[in-house]
């Protein structure tokens, strides 16, 4: 979802007062959706030893950690969690004035022969997932790539489908949807909010 966010305004609105918005999922609903997705991942992948969760920052990171905890609780499997920043693989960098901040990439295990499950918070155009797949291929040759999107907004611009969806949310392309921490950081309780159309332009 990184690619749908204007470069200057991070999805975590920092110290700005959080703008009001309609809550689409609260923390309990997020946990419930992730637990269901964890079951679906186990159902789809018999060989759990190959699983590798790879989060797309920032929002994918706490979600992937929760998914890993769920998988460990349900099936007693320890699934490694990686973080893959897609910024250097974006297709719109040259269209921007100031370049976006880079975020950490940490890939603790090799991706070769693994079933990589990409985890993102909000999927819209699919361009971030495209960038993530390209980035992933530079790290090796996964056996399979699957995608989790906590929120699927539609509006796809590339032929990319999600394997696991938390919630389908039909929205106007001008509205914005973000995952944020209720107390400002992504470590505590989370919520997904729908923010009204950004007057500055396409959000």
């Amino acid at each position, binding site marked *: 979802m990184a690619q749908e966010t204007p470069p200057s305004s991070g999805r975590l609105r920092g110290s700005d007062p959080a703008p009001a918005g309609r809550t689409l999922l609260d923390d309990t609903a997020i946990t419930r959706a992730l637990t269901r997705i964890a079951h679906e991942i186990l159902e789809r992948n018999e060989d759990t030893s190959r699983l590798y969760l790879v989060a797309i920052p920032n929002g994918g990171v706490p979600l992937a950690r929760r998914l890993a905890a769920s998988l460990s609780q349900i099936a007693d499997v320890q699934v490694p969690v990686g973080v893959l920043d897609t910024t250097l*693989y974006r297709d719109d960098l040259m269209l921007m004035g*100031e370049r976006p901040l*880079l975020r950490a990439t940490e890939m603790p295990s090799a991706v070769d022969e693994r079933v990589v499950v990409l985890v993102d918070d909000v999927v819209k155009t699919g361009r971030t997932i495209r960038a993530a797949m390209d980035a992933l291929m530079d*790290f*090796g040759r996964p056996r399979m790539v699957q995608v989790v999107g906590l929120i699927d907004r539609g509006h796809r611009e590339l032929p990319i489908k999600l394997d696991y969806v938390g919630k389908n949310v039909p929205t106007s392309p001008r509205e914005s949807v973000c995952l944020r921490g209720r107390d400002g950081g992504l470590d505590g309780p989370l919520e997904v909010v729908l923010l009204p159309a950004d007057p500055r332009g396409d959000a």
Partner: protein
Amino acid sequence: MIGSDLLGIENLERSDIERILHTAVHMREVGEREVKKVPTLRGRTIVNLFFESSTRTRASFEIAGKRLSADVVNFSPSTSSMKKAESILDTARTLDAMDPDAVIVRHEVSGVPKCIADVLDAPVINAGDGAHEHPTQALLDLFTVQQEKGCIDGLTVTIVGDILHSRVARSNIYGFLKMGAEVRVAAPPPMIPPAIEELGVKAYTSLREALDGADVVMALRIQSERLAGSYFPSAREYAATFGLDRSKLHYAKEDAIVMHPGPVNRGVELAHDLADHRPSVILDQVRNGVAIRMAVLYLYAGRKRERGQSRSAS
């Protein structure tokens, strides 16, 4: 807000420097991957326009550009045929007509990168101009210190050597002061520019005093063939008074690191064993140089120059 060109550290804000250093942290991680290449600048052209010879800096920019998937063209007009300012600008205009996405300029005369930036559409990165500035060297030095020490604020940095002729010293003085360090310079008196303390540094002619309590010691390259006789009696005497070795390093803090922009005159400004082993971090500086130049290219290359904005803004 980062400007169109990187001409010097003097006109960067602290936040710009922090932005570049933050970006370099992630670029260094790219350099540690098995595939050390990202598609960020694919289809972009970067011109290395080096009027003054350089192996290290040019190679460093070339590797940085290639790791970002840019096409890098090296262009080194011989200086003898380029004495006139007009021909420099002609060269620059010719290159500009080829639509580069960044032009990296080194020249033996101060101010040439700025003159070129004034006529080019492409962003200009200064890779060293005369005795003026060498911003990417200072940035990689700041980055190396940040990696070694955790932060730069509050550190004491001592720069030893030919402060008068050194663009590395000048850029580092601006950089370390902006990042909150205390900066000292030490050299034989003729190599200390008279008004240097107006920049906010302390000047010393005693190495011992300058090193007292230093966290970072940076030795500069001494062009002993050119300078011996007029600025100091002989290379041997310079080495005895201002050359760094392990015994003189005792005056600095116990965990002080030693830096050098390279290439080292072994036995002149740095003792042999010090050049090769900790606490010197010279090879880390080289490695970090690629990351810093990747960061600079990421942040500057391919950006449209905004009309109406002062072209000299950097």
